[in-house]
């Protein structure tokens, strides 16, 4: 872990990548997300924090329309990526998800080889013309996910045989291989040990060079370490959104203060 690493506040100049306005989400009768509006910037790590069940994962899944796969889920409001409404009829959720990659809480490599796991996205989106191009894409993705050195000799071993931390980095490699513009991470470290967590956090900071990263986390230390912007959710509401430093040192809302000091949640 890099002790001296701290989120830097050089993000004010970045353009807005994702703009959400008055987003409401319902699961059947339950009103899970209440009127959330937020601007997520490009080349920035944005952390969503909040107690369990506050809707942060639900909101994350709205950004790549993963909630479409849940029958009873209904999304209202407006979410724009690069000023394009992603809930517009003309948008194909399948193409949207290629542009907005996602990494899940539990590492979920496919029961295929490491190579095939990473090549999965490029193959279905036709990103390579031949085998050597695909090899390059796989190698680049694995390198970017900081796992290349560990798996370069066993690319054709099953991905499920890796350790938990390696599996999660493999899933990150799999997500970046499709060249997304936004990377959504739903508690990517909750199933990992501290060392693997440190590796993934370091990786997230590097991914910031190319992507807009949104990370849901339960650990406030993690949010403070990796993010430049932080959004605090409580009971389906977006309570406070701002610079990470400010949220953690001088929160405006009393609920935010209670949460980060450990009084609610």
């Amino acid at each position, binding site marked *: 872990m890099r002790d001296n690493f701290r989120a830097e506040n050089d993000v004010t100049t970045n353009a807005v990548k994702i703009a959400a306005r008055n987003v409401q989400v319902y699961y059947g009768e339950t009103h899970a997300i209440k009127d959330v509006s937020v601007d997520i910037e490009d080349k920035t790590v944005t952390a969503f924090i909040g107690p369990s069940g506050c809707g942060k994962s639900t909101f994350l899944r709205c950004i790549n329309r993963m909630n479409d796969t849940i029958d009873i889920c209904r999304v209202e409001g407006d979410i724009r990526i690069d000023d394009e409404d992603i809930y517009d009829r003309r948008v194909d959720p399948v193409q949207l998800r*290629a542009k907005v990659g*996602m990494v899940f809480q539990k590492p979920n490599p496919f029961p295929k080889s490491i190579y095939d796991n990473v090549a*999965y*996205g490029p193959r*279905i*989106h036709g990103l390579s013309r031949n085998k050597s191009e695909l090899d390059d894409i796989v190698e680049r993705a694995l390198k970017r996910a900081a796992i290349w050195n560990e798996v370069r000799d066993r690319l054709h071993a099953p991905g499920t045989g890796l350790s938990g931390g390696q599996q999660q980095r493999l899933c990150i490699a799999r997500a970046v291989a499709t060249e997304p513009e936004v990377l959504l991470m739903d508690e990517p470290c909750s199933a990992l040990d501290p060392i693997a967590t440190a590796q993934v956090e370091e990786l997230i900071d590097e991914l910031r060079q190319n992507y807009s990263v949104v990370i849901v986390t339960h650990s406030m230390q993690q949010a403070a370490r990796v993010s430049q912007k932080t959004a605090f959710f409580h009971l389906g509401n977006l309570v406070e959104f701002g610079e990470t430093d400010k949220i953690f040192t001088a929160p405006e809302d009393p609920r935010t203060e209670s949460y980060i000091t450990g009084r609610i949640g």
Partner: protein
Amino acid sequence: MPASWILLIIIALSVIGYFIAKQRALASGGGDRRVLHSLPKYYGTNAALAAAAPALLILGIWMILQPVVIDSIISSNLPEAVQADRGERSLAMADVQRIADGLDTAVSRGAMTADEAVDIRVGASNVRERLAEVGVALGSEVDANTLQMAQEYRALTSTGNIWRAIAVLVVALGGLAIAYMMTHKDFRARNSVERAILSLLIAAACVAILTTVGIVFSLIFNTHDFFSRYPAEDFFFGTRWEPSFSGRGGASDLGFLPLIWGTLFISLIALLVAVPLGLFSAIYLSEYASKPVRSIVKPLLEMLAGIPTIVYGLFALLTVGPLLLDVFGRDGVLGVNWMSGGTAAMTAGLVMGIMLIPFVSSLSDDIINAVPQAMRDGSFGLGATQSETLRQVILPAALPGIVGAILLAASRAIGETMIVVLGAGAAASLSLNPFEAMTTVTAKIVSQLTGDGEFNSPETLVAFALGMTLFVITLALNIVALWIVRRYREQYE
């Protein structure tokens, strides 16, 4: 004392045991339930079990062994010549038993007194007529020796029954007494009842296993008998199946190959129908169907599995066969004249395939559902469509299980009888034409055993060799299938 009385007494004893043990347990705790180790009902159950279980066990064993023992004692009195031949010996013993039973019946109906029955002599009275009066018909005149043996049989049986009653009741009372003495507030009655339940469960499991072992042994002995009358190489490698039934004389050709060919050919047709249809419907149900559709379609599909196979057989014979004949027959729609009769490998195969659909679809559906949602999320999250996810992630992950399901369906197909008997015809032929009549191993087992052939002839005994071979094949298929399914299950749990 008849067995039913003994049974009633045992039940009464165990009911009494239940209440007195419960009472004693409460008394030993000074009336306070909380100082007892177990609930009072456990003390009662323990005593009831101690009274009933060993006594019933002895009663059962006694009832099985007594006739065997008496039989062997009596039959040693038979003439040497009769004893030597198994058939004659069992006939003679049947006579003895019949007379003994007849005398018992006569006594119980009041047609004779017990003393008359004991004193009855061949010369003094006509035994056959006396017995006929009470409704016991005898095949021939009773000779003195048989009558004497029958009397001996009666005597031994009644002595045996008295000892049986004494032994069983002593054991029942003893068990009750021991359980009653042991009943005390510190006695762990609950644990001992649990142990009794455990042994009951083990016994139930053993019945199934022992039955299987019994089936296998009966197959093995009869198969061995068959091979001592018919050369094994002619059976396994013979290409002609032409049994000649006794009476006509002449040797039979009992070649196994045409039968197994028919079996495999029809099973293959059935699987070609069942696997795609079953698999596709499983995919639709598990991945695409909405909840209401699924809740209606799945039970409907599984209802196919509940239709008796004879009904499928009728469907094959009366509907599918004529339909196929209209298409592929002489004056059919296609004008090809491939098919000469309604019964053909294709008829049976198609109908059997329909029968197998629920096997494939239901198992595959479970297996596809067992693939974790995380796999689907991962694939959707990368921008894959539903069918890409299905083809590239879910089916490969579920493949071993699906193969297992298909193998289970295959072993069902190989063992299927009624559809084949009605739909496939009776001629054993080594043909490649699916529209020709064929027959299978199972259908031939039926026809060999239901004919009026002598039981000891190879033409009849061949059924056991066929059954054994079929058993080995389906057993192997099932083992492979279960092994594959289990290996798959370990992957995610």
